[in-house]
């Protein structure tokens, strides 16, 4: 039988606010345990929550970024359950009236195809603390620093049909939230986590199969692998005549498998009800319009513009718009040098190669966009040739040239890399090379005319060497051919 996979994602994004969603404690990562858990985060008797305006603004910005409806009124509810990392015995969340209504996210697949994934809604909630299972005489330690960190939970429709689509969706969400600057998107630190709902059904069948929920997957790669494993497990189960049980599973990256979380399976009844300590959040149109007006250009729009206005290929536009840092770097290079294709080639070629080799993010590039743009300007105006340009790039990478925006010029000057375009000077070098290479000249002369084209390479190389790479290669070619042919 042919099976079709159906996937829906719940992505939890930690919002990059300075303070917590309902308290004035810091959200900074990595502090000593419980030093950033204030009375409100600890749920001490009598404390009350007050909503952080920035968390609201960020949620709305996300909603606008996915063209979602922004309801005028949203309401916080309490999700009641006991767990040591949940200090109040309930999580303040939004069950019935979320802050972001239905929207959509465009994803780009490897074959360049585009697909729209619908977002059911996104809601604000508070993060829980952390349980540390190191050995405290058989006890578990609880750190509540993370408790109360604002989360935006983005719930998709079950619109994805493969692990690749799910990963592409997750990347698209990552790119949107980082473009908006509403999250650092750091998956290793847990700033973005996702729960994956997976089911399979016979191809052509309309009804969904029974789904399993894989909790807390925290990397793009793990999402793909968890889904691949889970699909295989469910298909095998069904083909053997078994049934998929609706349950929560955990992905174990080391064993590369998902496992049932039986301990948490017992009857959950969260008893949601509106939080009486918080009032309905009402967003007036002027506020939403103001945020809309200040929204940065988002990846999909950028990609479109790179393709249509700058004439980049779909592939280049996709790569260069994938992250805000990359796009901004590229745009600055383009602004300085004025040539989109050259800028794209350099950013994706020399620069990306060097960054990858050193394991650096583009934000940490030792070569600034202004410096790279300055370098490309000199390629375009024929001041240097391609080979010299690579030398200049290496010098910039190693911090030569004074670090100013015009460092490329300083390096060209210092290293004498300026291209020689003076015909007289090039002719003199050619004459010298011909004089020094009688055997090669003889071979050239004796060769069939149609083989001579290939043989000219030797002479070009010698001339370039004599010029220490600064001679204009096109001129060298042309003049050499004229001179050699004159000898034949």
């Amino acid at each position, binding site marked *: 039988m042919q099976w079709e996979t159906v996937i829906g994602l719940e992505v939890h994004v930690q919002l990059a606010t300075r303070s917590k969603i309902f308290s004035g404690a810091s959200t900074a990562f990595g502090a000593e345990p*419980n030093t950033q*858990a204030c*009375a409100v985060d600890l749920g001490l008797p009598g404390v009350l929550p007050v909503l952080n*305006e920035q968390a609201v603004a960020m949620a709305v910005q996300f909603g606008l970024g996915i063209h979602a409806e922004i309801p005028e009124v949203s309401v916080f509810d309490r999700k009641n359950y006991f767990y*040591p990392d949940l200090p109040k015995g309930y999580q303040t969340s939004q069950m019935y009236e979320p802050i972001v209504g239905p929207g959509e996210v465009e994803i780009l697949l490897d074959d360049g195809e585009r697909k729209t994934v619908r977002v059911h809604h996104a809601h604000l909630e508070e993060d829980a603390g952390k349980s540390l299972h190191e050995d405290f005489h058989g*006890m578990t*330690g609880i750190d509540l620093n993370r408790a109360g960190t604002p989360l935006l939970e983005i719930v998709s429709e079950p619109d994805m049909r493969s692990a690749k689509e799910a990963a592409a969706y997750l990347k698209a969400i990552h790119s949107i939230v980082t473009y908006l600057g509403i999250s650092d998107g750091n998956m290793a630190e847990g700033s973005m986590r996702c729960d994956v709902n997976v089911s399979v059904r016979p191809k052509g069948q309309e009804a969904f199969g029974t789904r399993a929920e894989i909790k807390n997957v925290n990397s793009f790669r793990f999402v793909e692998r968890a889904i691949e494993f889970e699909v295989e497990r469910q298909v095998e189960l069904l083909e053997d005549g078994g049934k998929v049980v609706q349950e929560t599973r955990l992905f174990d990256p080391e064993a590369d498998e998902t496992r049932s979380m039986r301990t948490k399976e017992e009857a959950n009844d969260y008893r949601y009800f509106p939080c009486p300590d918080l009032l309905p959040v009402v967003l007036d149109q002027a506020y939403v319009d103001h945020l809309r007006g200040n929204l940065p250009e988002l990846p999909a729009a950028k990609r479109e513009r790179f393709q249509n206005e700058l004439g980049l290929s779909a592939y280049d536009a996709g790569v260069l718009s994938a992250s805000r840092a990359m796009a901004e770097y590229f745009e600055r290079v383009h602004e300085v040098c004025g040539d989109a294709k050259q800028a794209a080639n350099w950013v994706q070629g020399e620069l990306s190669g060097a960054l990858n080799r050193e394991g650096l993010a583009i934000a940490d590039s030792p070569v600034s966009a202004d410096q790279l743009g300055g370098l490309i300007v000199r390629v375009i105006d024929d001041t240097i040739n391609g080979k010299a340009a690579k030398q200049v790039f290496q010098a910039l990478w190693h911090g030569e040239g004074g670090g100013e925006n015009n460092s490329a010029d300083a390096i060209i000057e210092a290293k004498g890399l300026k291209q020689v375009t003076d015909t007289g000077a090039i002719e003199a070098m050619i004459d010298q090379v011909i004089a020094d290479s009688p055997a090669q000249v003889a071979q050239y002369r004796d060769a069939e005319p149609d083989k001579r084209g290939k043989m000219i390479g030797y002479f070009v190389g010698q001339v370039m060497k004599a010029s220490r790479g600064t001679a204009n290669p096109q001129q060298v070619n042309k003049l050499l051919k004229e001179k050699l042919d004159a000898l034949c």
Partner: protein
Amino acid sequence: MALEHADVLRAAHLARLGLDEGEADRYLDDLGRILEMVDQLQSLDTDGVEPLAHPLDATQRLRADEVTEGDQRETFQRCAPAVENGLYLVPRVVE
């Protein structure tokens, strides 16, 4: 809506309240009578009435995103029953 013994045990479990059988019986009786009283609500026609969560029709005020709370771990943990290395201790949690 008649209350059953199992309902009491289920509520007690959800609320993490230890009850022995005798207590469960007693609460079944009390709760049954309370719910009987509460069931008068069912006789009222409330079609078209919006639920009222807060007595004033007020809306949420927002806080500026500022860090106003410093480290008070020592103070807060003075009233904690079991702490070690700044962590609250609970019996081992099995994931």
